[in-house]
């Protein structure tokens, strides 16, 4: 390249270039000597929306029915809990049996009241946390929660303005919050709720739903019973006929309920040719049914420390960590949030990699919360 351009100014430029910092020193000579500002409004909002964890007090416990209780949680260190989108969950940490357990529970209260969150817990067969909460937790008890998290939300941009909510059992919690929110903000044109329970007594918040349906012409609710036959209630499970009757074309489904319900509905959706786009569902984990229970060794590397604990073939690695009193990093417990992501150093496993990044699948990363051991296992936690 031939020499170029600014020849006339060459001398001047060279001198200028001699001060290689281009006046940087002079410019800052008169600036403030205070420590630099690093925190902006947006940074403060991060703490308001995403505190790393929260200490809460149980202010009120309400028995919703025979095996379900609601808990009102108030923050101890601040007046307000983080704003959340209807459908979000928190992770509840419970100390019992000399161990620490973390479980996700959907917030069932309203998005516009942030002084307290409500979570609603149905006691599960063999459940540890749900048993503890329903039988031992008392008002004024202190608990730790994390979150809110999750992606089970209504989106004005993505979703149809006519929605169909399919809720089963305790899956109603987030759907309730969503319906109340959408009716209040008038974001949708119509909501149809099909709410399946075993018996009439299992229906949560029936008076509230009935009242909402009376007040809002665009909200309709149908209760469906699977274990009790009553004249004024339809009987059975949500099936293809029922869905076809709802004229589902172009409407968005919000599905939340027990695993069996997702599995059954999945087949129906495929059969009815409903595109993925129109099906939003709460996250869930399939549990493993095995007869023979093997015990293996689980070796955990974390921050330079090595821990060895037993693990069982019918338990996820996270469950084995809980049993083995090893504090595992978990939030969702269903293999979706990525918080427990670990590298599998050796061993064979049965796992679900559907929520992992492709490169991580290649490099043998796993979500221990949805991983069952098939041999001795060695993993590295974050």
């Amino acid at each position, binding site marked *: *390249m*031939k*020499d*170029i*351009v*600014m020849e006339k100014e*060459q001398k001047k*430029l*060279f001198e*200028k*270039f*001699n001060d*290689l*910092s*281009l*006046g*940087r*020193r002079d*410019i*800052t*000579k008169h*600036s*403030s*000597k*205070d*420590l*630099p*500002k*690093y*925190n*902006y*409004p*947006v*940074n403060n*909002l*991060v703490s*308001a*929306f*995403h505190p790393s964890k929260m200490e809460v007090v149980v202010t009120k416990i309400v028995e919703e029915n025979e095996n379900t209780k609601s808990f009102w949680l108030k923050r101890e260190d601040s007046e*307000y809990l983080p*704003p959340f989108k209807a459908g979000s969950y928190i992770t509840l940490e419970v100390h019992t049996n000399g161990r620490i357990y973390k479980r996700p529970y959907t917030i069932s209260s309203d998005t516009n009241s942030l002084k307290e969150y409500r979570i609603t817990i149905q006691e599960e067969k063999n459940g540890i946390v749900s048993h503890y909460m329903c039988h031992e937790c008392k008002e004024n008890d202190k608990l730790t929660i994390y979150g809110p998290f999750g*992606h089970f939300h209504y*989106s004005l*941009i*993505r979703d149809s303005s006519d929605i169909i909510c399919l809720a089963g059992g305790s899956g109603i919690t987030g759907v309730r919050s969503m319906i109340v929110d959408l009716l209040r903000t008038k974001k949708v044109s119509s909501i149809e709720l099909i709410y399946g329970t075993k018996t009439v007594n299992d229906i949560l918040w029936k008076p509230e739903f009935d009242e909402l349906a009376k007040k809002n012409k665009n909200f309709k609710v149908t209760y469906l019973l699977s274990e009790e036959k009553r004249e004024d209630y339809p009987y059975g499970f949500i099936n293809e006929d029922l869905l076809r009757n709802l004229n589902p074309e172009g409407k968005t489904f919000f599905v939340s309920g027990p695993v069996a319900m997702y599995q059954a509905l999945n087949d129906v959706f495929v059969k009815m040719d409903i*595109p*993925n*786009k129109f099906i939003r569902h709460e996250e869930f984990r399939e549990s493993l049914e095995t007869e023979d229970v093997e015990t293996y060794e689980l070796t955990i590397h974390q*921050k*330079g420390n090595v821990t060895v604990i037993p693990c069982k073939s019918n338990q996820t690695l996270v469950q084995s960590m809980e049993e083995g009193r090893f504090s595992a990093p978990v939030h969702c417990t269903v293999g979706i949030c*990525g*918080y427990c*992501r670990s590298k599998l150093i050796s061993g064979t496993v049965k796992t679900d990699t559907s929520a*992992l*990044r*492709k*490169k991580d699948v*290649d*490099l043998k990363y796993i979500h221990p919360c949805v991983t069952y051991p098939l041999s001795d296992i060695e993993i590295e936690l*974050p």
Partner: protein
Amino acid sequence: MEKFDCIVIGAGNGGLVAALTLQKKGKNVLILEKGLAPGGVATSFRRGRFEFDASLHELCGYGELGNKGEIDALFERLGIESKVEMMHAKEAFHVVDKLTKDEYSMPVGVDNFIEKMEEYVPGSRDSMTTFFGLCEDIQDALSYLHSEKGAIDEKDLYQKYPNFVQLAPYKVNAVLEKIKMPKKAIEILSTYWVYLGSPIDDLSFVHYASMVYSYVLYGPAIPTYTSHELSRVLENEFKNAGGTIYYLSEVEKIDVEDGEVTGVQTKDTSYATSHVIANLSPKVVYGKMISKENVPIENCQLENERILGARGVSIYLGLNASCEEIGFHHYTYFLSNNLNSKVEYKKMQEVFHGNVVGVVPNIVNKKASPEGTCILNLTSLIFGDAFDKLVNKENYFDVKEQLADFLIRSFEETTGISIREYIEEIEIATPLTFARYTGHPSGVIYGYMAKGYDNLLPRTFSEEEETRIKGLRFCGGFGARLSGFSSTYLNGEDVAMKTLGE
């Protein structure tokens, strides 16, 4: 207490490369990362059946076989070149002027680029040829500068690279006008200014030219499995070389005694070291991580003068139809309200302004999403603190949704491509999101503004003087080479070599 030769704070691009470089030179290095994954914003995330790149549109300076670029050369030195799978775009960029609806598609390859420009702007050929000649000179000079570890011999520099020395103090517009580039050609050529986040009357010519050159020469590149692939491979290589990395480990304090680094502290652990490389903003480091009496006043003054760079809003869309069905034909769409960067920059101080960069990875990478689907990423920059002023606890979720709606509409109206009906997954990242994951002030994604005194060269030449606490250096987007994937990778190596020299 664990002791290390060097502790790198943050596993972003700069931090990963700095750590890997030092570890490979036989040093014992620890990376402390507050999050859960390597890469900082060089990461990806899953929604439904899609995996979205959080940040990378395109990498510049990645050459192809037999035609080495700076980045593949670096990857070769780091031992990872054969472990990543890269793909190249055939088009440098596609720009749409919203006002006139004029569109310009600029190809890869210097000759192609010049020819195409001549087609759009007859009479531009000579100046474009001069421009690329200058680019070559500048590239050579910059390699020389970065390879000189000690003080730079100015006479020698002048003799070897006269054009570089002459142009060094000038801004983009000044030089392009001087070489008589037609106005329209200047506007098209300066399309990339948004990537550097300063309008061309404030942007160093040398810096801009080196970026344009490496895009046009090799073509924009992306990894097959998003930028997370690059970050994960770097992390893996670092661990295999014996390096240590701890996640969920936010450093709260850097210990300094008698003007020298002695260690760092997280919430629950202290580590000893005499070398720290910080992959974060000096505003944060001096502002809260070092006890006040140990913070040099001159560094405070400099930091108080420096202006935070662009904040970003990014909309990630998983679409349930293929590129052909939807009508995407370009990899990168630059949608501009005004091709004059000075005018556009002013407008971009608002939150809702409609300057959007759209990227469709599937055009380059068939594996970017499942068959019959594709991804569109829309990014819009905001200069200044308008977003800080706009949002609060009550309106944040709504603002987020309104912004996404506005940007999607802007894209649809400008390109005439409708996308709304195909949206299967949507995620929206705002400055708040980036602030959450990076911890950077105001959630900036581009470090500091490249203002005159804070351009590439002044930063590079002042680095030693401004290293006033012995053993404390900075790398990454707030560092000497400014922001961007390539700059931060290269800067990581520079800083590691300087640390090694100590």
